[in-house]
């Protein structure tokens, strides 16, 4: 049981880390960036192949992986979002264009085999791989009947730290104020001399970098890196998390992440494993019905 609590907290951290990038973009652009899961996966995949296929030390690989993810943020903005903003297309259009990009990224990795044009990116095709033992030190501690793996335990402080940093930046720095200004009232922001387009690019860079980092941690801690980890394992749960926490709220995303983690594990323990699959979504559904603005969100009302 207590082991399960540890598990819950750990999963919660992964969810939180993934969802924060997700919710950041929504909070500022009112757009669901469905390419976020693909970036999550790309970060992990790239780091892996840098270590295993290009013989880079893990630290270097991580930095490059995160950098690449951040760059994908720019790609999302310039390819999928900005053209649509220019045409004043509704957010649903952005939904589709980001889905399209996700499709491309996943396909590129999935078809990355030693004989393909993507071999420089990835060679294991649709296979699932893990970092070879030793590339990332992972001592395991047994305390009482508790088992703690370094790679998993590490995620929790990293998550918390990142959230604190992000929270600090958003609240107390000029950039943070700028981002919040763009989120609340782009027009006012423009009048105050903010370059809204640049702020949006920045948002996507930050969000994607976080997504990539989350992917790397996922890959390291779970020993599972495949083209589908983003799409299959975290994307829709990420949605659940940001809705639980309140769309656009960063603390909401963190709390929501841990909440979902705990709820899932508790249902597994009490109601049995079969039910736990659907529980995230039942929670999602109920939350939207009972409290659409989520735990920390603010309700939107239209002026007549």
């Amino acid at each position, binding site marked *: 049981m207590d082991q399960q609590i540890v*598990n819950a907290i750990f999963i919660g951290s992964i969810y939180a880390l993934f969802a924060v990038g997700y919710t950041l973009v929504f909070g500022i652009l009112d757009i669901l960036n469905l390419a976020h899961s693909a970036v999550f996966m790309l970060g992990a995949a790239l780091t892996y192949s840098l270590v295993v296929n290009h013989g880079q030390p893990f630290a270097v690989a991580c930095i490059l992986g995160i950098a690449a993810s951040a760059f994908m943020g720019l790609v999302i903005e310039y390819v999928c979002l900005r053209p649509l903003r220019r045409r004043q297309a509704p957010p649903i259009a952005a939904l589709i264009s980001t889905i399209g990009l996700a499709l491309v990224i996943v396909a590129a990795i999935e078809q990355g085999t030693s004989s393909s044009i993507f071999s420089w990116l990835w060679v294991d*095709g649709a296979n699932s791989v893990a970092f070879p*033992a030793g590339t990332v030190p992972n001592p395991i501690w047994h305390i009482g009947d508790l*088992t703690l793996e370094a790679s998993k335990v590490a995620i929790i402080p990293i998550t918390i730290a990142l959230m604190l940093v992000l929270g600090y930046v958003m609240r107390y720095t000029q950039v943070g104020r700028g981002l919040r200004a763009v989120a609340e009232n782009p027009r006012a922001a423009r009048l105050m001399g903010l370059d809204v387009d640049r702020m949006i690019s920045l948002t996507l860079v930050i969000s994607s970098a976080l997504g990539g980092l989350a992917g790397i941690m996922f890959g390291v801690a779970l020993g599972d890196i495949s083209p589908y980890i983003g799409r299959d394992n*975290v994307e829709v*749960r990420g949605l659940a998390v940001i809705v639980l926490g309140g769309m656009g709220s960063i603390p909401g995303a963190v709390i929501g992440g841990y909440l979902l983690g705990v709820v899932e594990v508790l249902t597994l323990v009490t109601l049995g494993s079969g039910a*736990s699959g659907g529980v995230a979504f039942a929670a999602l559904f109920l939350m939207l019905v009972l409290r659409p603005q989520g735990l920390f969100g603010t309700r939107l009302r239209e002026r007549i």
Partner: protein
Amino acid sequence: MKRMRFVCWVAATLVIAACGSSGNTGGGNSANAYAGKTIKFGAILSITGAGGVYGPQSRDGAMLAVKQINASGGINGAMIDLEVQDDASLAATSAQKAQTLIQSSLDLALLGPTLSNSAVAVHPLAESLKTPILAVSTTGIHIVPDCNWTAANPTTTPCKYVFRDSLGEQTAIPDNIKSYAADAHPSTGVLLVAQDDKFSSDGGKIVQDTVGQYNIQLLKTIPFSKAAADLTPYVTEAVQLHPDVIFITSLGGIPAKIMTGARNLGFQGQFLGGNGFNTATVSKQAGAAGKGARSASAWYIGNTFASNQDFVTAYKSEYSKDPDQFAAQGYAGIKILADAAKRANLTFTDLAGDRDKLRAAMETVNIQTPLGPFQFTSTHDVKQTVWIIEMDGAGGFKLDHQIQPS
């Protein structure tokens, strides 16, 4: 319903008539009728999508066989033309492509599809279109021998046109459990089964039905969704019951994840699995955690059959990498079809007739393949040596037992 069936028949007969007329008009019915002709085979494989882990290997194996046969003068002088279609791991697409291969490309026989989900959609189609189809990687229940698709009565009727050269979980898992029970006499087990794909659920069902025979008490069955972000909570559930054996029936990266998780949680017992274990990538991903994990395999790279040695060397020189079970089965698949086609004394004018002749010939196949001396059972399933192998903890496998076909 009746009317629909009728329409279907009309459609089918129309097509077959069309084929007859548009077919090749030369030659009588002797072996030399083959000379200069082309024998068209089709393959529906999962090159993209989740099945992309297996499909490409099957394709490479099959292509290698075609190359060898054509290089050595073809089938009585007739060249093989293999058309591979990707089904994107989707059942619907799989069926569509199958129909096209059968009715548009007018292939003599088909290989595939890669995944059990797709097979359930494709095989009945081939059956109803009277076209031989040979499964080269599917291991689920109901692939063969049961071609009774009218749900009204639950009796099973053997397929006429559906064959399989891949080892079914119904054989593999029991063999595996049996041999391990004989070796170690385990008393308790827990089953971890991925509940959201047919292959895994089938495996789970077989484990549940088998363990009793070897007085293994199944403490708990823990179904999980492949979409779960982290399996540790499920594994924890299993490990906390301290079973002697953890049965894992799932695909892709999941078995490795479970084994790693369980070992990290201090599980000392044995892992038993099914086909999901039999790829080098899984062994590699599991690493040390996988050491000793056992499964029954249709093929094993070190197996001593001469035909296998040749295959392995040829495959290595062709693709500069090791073949795996799926490559071997794909390779064997073409060899089987070729052998049957050789003996079927095809006319090349009457496609429907040729397809019947081919399926008849297939039932009497008896050749050497990388899988060993190969024959079909009366229900068109594979009759071959089964290899009980275990992961060596370094990305490879080592042989435990060799079970001769009964």
